[in-house]
């Protein structure tokens, strides 16, 4: 094996080494730890991009950890979907980390850097693993790291919200284990490809249990993805945490979506009997509700962070509407939308961060304040982020929505999908325009002195601007990107390839 063959492990190993090293360095050599952290992030980005390049040939690569063949050991599976998610996560992480360093958010509590990298390790592991129990484990890694990051900093509100976030997710993990247990009890395997094969062979007597397992598993993923009505935890959690952390969390709900996209076509595809396309009857209505609840929340929010949180909900709803029909075409659109939604959501949070640092006591409350330093620049960024989140040209959200409209045409329930997308976009436009004009146009006292704030580096604007630039780039490169998502969706919807790649042609 060449070193390149081992590369699939890099996205897990790099943060797994960066985190403890940063932890050791933190106390005595804070600067070195910071540099290491950033370096680790960049290294991960490089690894992710390389893997993305590797996955371009359309082959699915299986990496057998411990040299134990699938399905007996744990395998990492590098396909287009995994590669795409890795790049997205690494990209987001690098920008967010940069922002945290520039704003000093990493020094507002303990262990930001180790927790940050452990979070990435969890994400990357979840994207790469080909084993259902291992997916659980990496879910736990990313969750517990997210607890730590979510609580980073101080405050009673954050703690209370943290308790709810943690408890809900622990219950979710319990459900995950029950679902996993059922699947193992039925099939005696944990490897996803093997599960696909064995589930297809289950007899009639087992169909009920199989369906329960599938539905419970989907419930867990839906909880992580904050699918209505399992979304209730999200707004408070994301609004209560530090915006820079919330920006990283923009990808967390999408992990739930990822897990659905990974498991449903593969394990619960057409061959799965009673569990065929298991979330199908419920996902579309839930997604529609999610988009509505999300954009209504954008309109109803009382603070920027809360608004951004609802925008994240809304984007999940929107993209799940496309996912729900389980076709390659809609899935491709959904993937494009997902990528841009992650960046747009993160951008919103970072803009919220920049804004609230400059508004003093007014923080991110959606009430007029006296003028503040950098108001115009922040306003412009907010405008752009809002455009991205709501899906107007020239940013990628618009393209994403067009893609979803186009692809979902004539799928079951498409009029509802279309109506929802269009109406919720309008609600979002109204919401963002109201809050934007309140924050950046209206002043509580026009002639009052601007809010005094210590000289802020313009560098604070860089990270959100970069994310927005990425959104613009996604628009410009929409052709290339949709080609990627199309190929990815096609690969996902052809589980045979996956199964063969993991288990070998013999099966």
């Amino acid at each position, binding site marked *: 094996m060449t070193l390149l063959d081992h590369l699939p492990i890099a996205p897990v190993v790099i943060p797994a080494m960066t985190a403890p090293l940063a932890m050791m360095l933190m106390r005595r050599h804070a600067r070195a730890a910071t540099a290491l952290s950033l370096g680790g992030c960049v290294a991960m980005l490089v690894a992710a991009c390389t893997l993305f390049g590797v996955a371009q040939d359309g082959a699915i690569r299986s990496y057998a950890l411990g040299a134990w063949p699938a399905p007996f050991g744990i395998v990492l599976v590098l396909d287009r979907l995994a590669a795409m998610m890795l790049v997205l996560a690494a990209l987001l992480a690098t920008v967010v980390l940069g922002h945290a360093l520039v704003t000093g958010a990493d020094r507002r509590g303990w262990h930001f850097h180790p927790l940050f990298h452990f979070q990435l390790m969890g994400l990357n592991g979840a994207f790469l693993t080909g084993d259902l129990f291992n997916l659980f*484990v990496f879910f736990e890694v990313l969750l517990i790291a997210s607890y730590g990051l979510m609580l980073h900093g101080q405050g009673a509100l954050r703690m209370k919200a943290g*308790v709810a976030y*943690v*408890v809900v997710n622990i219950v979710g993990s*319990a459900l995950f284990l029950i679902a*996993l247990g059922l699947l193992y009890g039925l099939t005696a395997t944990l490897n996803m490809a093997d599960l696909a094969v064995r589930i297809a062979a289950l007899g009639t007597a087992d169909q009920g249990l199989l369906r329960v397992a599938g539905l419970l598993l989907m419930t867990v993923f839906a909880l992580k993805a904050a699918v209505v009505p399992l979304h209730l935890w999200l707004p408070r959690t994301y609004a209560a945490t530090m915006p820079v952390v919330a920006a990283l969390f923009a990808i967390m709900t999408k992990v739930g979506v990822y897990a659905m996209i990974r498991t449903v076509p593969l394990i619960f595809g057409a061959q799965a009997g009673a569990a065929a396309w298991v979330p199908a009857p419920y996902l579309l209505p839930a997604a529609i509700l999610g988009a509505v609840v999300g954009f209504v929340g954008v309109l109803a929010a009382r603070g920027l962070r809360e608004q951004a949180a609802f925008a994240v909900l809304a984007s999940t709803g929107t993209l799940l509407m496309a996912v729900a029909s389980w076709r390659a075409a809609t899935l491709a659109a959904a993937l494009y939308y997902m990528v841009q939604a992650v960046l747009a959501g993160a951008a919103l949070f970072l803009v919220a961060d920049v804004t609230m640092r400059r508004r003093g006591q007014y923080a991110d409350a959606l009430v007029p304040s006296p003028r503040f330093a950098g108001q115009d620049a922040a306003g412009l960024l907010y405008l752009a982020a809002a455009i991205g989140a709501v899906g107007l040209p020239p940013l990628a959200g618009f393209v994403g929505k067009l893609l979803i409209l186009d692809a979902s045409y004539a799928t079951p329930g498409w009029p509802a999908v279309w109506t929802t997308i269009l109406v919720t976009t309008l609600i979002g436009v109204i919401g963002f325009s109201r809050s934007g004009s309140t924050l950046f146009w209206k002043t509580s006292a026009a002639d009052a002195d601007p809010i005094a704030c210590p000289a802020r580096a313009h560098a604070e604007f860089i990270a959100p601007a970069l994310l927005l630039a990425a959104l613009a780039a996604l628009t410009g490169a929409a052709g290339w990107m949709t080609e990627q998502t199309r190929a990815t969706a096609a690969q996902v919807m052809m589980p045979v390839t996956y199964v063969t790649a993991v288990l070998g042609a013999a099966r």
Partner: protein
Amino acid sequence: MSLEFLVASAIAVLVAGGIYLALRGRTFQVVLGLTLLSYAVNLFLFAIGRLIVDRPPLYAKDVTAHADPLPQALVLTAIVITFGMTALTVILSLRSFLESGSDQVDGLADPDAEEPA
């Protein structure tokens, strides 16, 4: 009365107790609930390997009947993770109480909660 029935009903009792406590209003009750729930889940995960008495999965050449080792490994992993989560939850509840003066999960203060000067 079979072992299977005992285990299944124990799972039922633990889950019910866990759910009930998790739905209560104070952090400590919720922690208790989560603990019961995790017992139940561990037992469940264990039970899916089917129940086998006195055949621990210790390899020996001529042994054929043995408990399924894999669910045991899974439960071990689950126990460890649960422990980490429980520890964090307990301490988070405490910190939350210290910050807000209330141990209610939903943020309401008790009438007699003392406020620090």
